[in-house]
């Protein structure tokens, strides 16, 4: 059965978009396919890997488990919107500095989760960093350098 398209008005990385989508369209596919923002990745079918993490009204969420229509009216930040022009976000710079990635597939999600953590808990220690990363899986690094990178970013004067 055909179901009517529904309006989605969102601001993504500071740019507003007004469109209509099928209700079943997931936010991650809206970002990747409708807006061409392919930095947000899809790594699983079960809401577990965190590669799709974006900020929805300031909160880190798994965009594979949010309908695009649920985001109507929201402000969204993706990995593409994190840097300030040519200046990397402190978390991005720290991932580069501390070798917080290997293949890079998980990295956009890791960075978005870490940026949210430091936004909400600037004093996060290693235990808090590890607890915050429970929803982000990495098949390459063994996590050690990821935690190190986030610790480094947390220690940056801001």
């Amino acid at each position, binding site marked *: *059965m*055909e*179901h*009517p398209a*529904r309006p989605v008005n969102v601001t993504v990385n500071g740019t507003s978009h007004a469109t209509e989508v*099928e*209700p*079943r*369209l*997931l936010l991650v*596919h809206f970002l990747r396919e409708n807006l061409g923002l392919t930095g947000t990745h899809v790594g699983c*079918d*079960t*809401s*577990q890997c*965190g590669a799709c*993490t974006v900020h929805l009204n300031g*909160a*880190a*969420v*798994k965009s*594979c*488990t*949010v*309908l695009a*229509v*649920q985001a*109507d009216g929201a402000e969204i930040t993706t990995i593409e919107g994190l840097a300030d022009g040519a200046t990397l976000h402190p978390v991005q710079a720290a991932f580069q500095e501390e070798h917080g990635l290997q293949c890079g597939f998980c990295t956009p999600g890791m960075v978005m*989760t870490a940026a*949210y*953590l430091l936004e909400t808990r600037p004093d996060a220690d290693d235990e808090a960093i590890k*607890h*915050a990363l*429970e*929803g*982000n899986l990495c098949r390459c690094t063994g996590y050690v350098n990821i935690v190190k990178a986030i610790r480094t970013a947390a220690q940056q004067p801001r």
Partner: protein
Amino acid sequence: MHPASFGYEAPASLEEVFGLLRQHGEDAKLLAGGHSLLPAMKLRLTQPEVLIDLGRIPGLSGIRQDGDTLIIGALTTHTEVSASETVRNLLPGLADTASVIGDLQVRNRGTMGGSVAHADPGADLPVTLTALNASFMLTSAEGGRTVAADDFFVDFFTTALEPHEILTAIHIPLPAAPTRTSYAKLPHPASGYVVVSAAAALTLDGSGACTGARVVLGGVGGTPHRATGTETALNGQALTPEVIAAAAERAADGIDPHADSYADEEYKRHMAAVYARRAIEAAAARA
């Protein structure tokens, strides 16, 4: 993976929800945080015709104290519960429970009402809310009713909620005497859901004797399980290590846990006693 096609409604009031439920009947499902429903729809385990999104109805989320009751709106997220100063002060065991659900992103979307209504046998909040003697406000076009946690959870994924009802709020009584609350969880290493967990709410009198104990197990059946043998063994006693150990040994009395590929029955029975002891110790140690 994409869910099957469905229609989407975003009503602005409960009255509109009642109308939509009347119109669509059992073809419709309510959508809260979507963190149980959408994963199931992506895997085509469920294929509702219509989703009714509760997320745009004002007044369904938030935490407030009203006299001797703590009222939590059904749409309040796990993150809001775990971060709430009010909850941390009054019921730290509830804040701890919310903080170990799934992961950070899941906690930012998932709601207390959704967890309670979904009644996953591996869920955390039903266990603690039963220990806290919470009751659930169910609202329909005909009016409302209140169901105590002890009566609400019926079986695996089955509750007292009728299809035309909406869970609007969770009410938790705040006893006058100091009550200490805690939660101890053995999470599944892959999914993060409960293998076995225990929640404790212990009321103590001025001398430190336990005048009321509720100890509830998760993961050992289709619903949260009151460890009544443990509760009886604590009542009237000072909470010495010996009393706690003896009470916890009785946690597995009368349980018939479901085995899965990770934990067999014997292991779950053993963990029931271990986690009951940890929860009681943690509650007793609260200032």
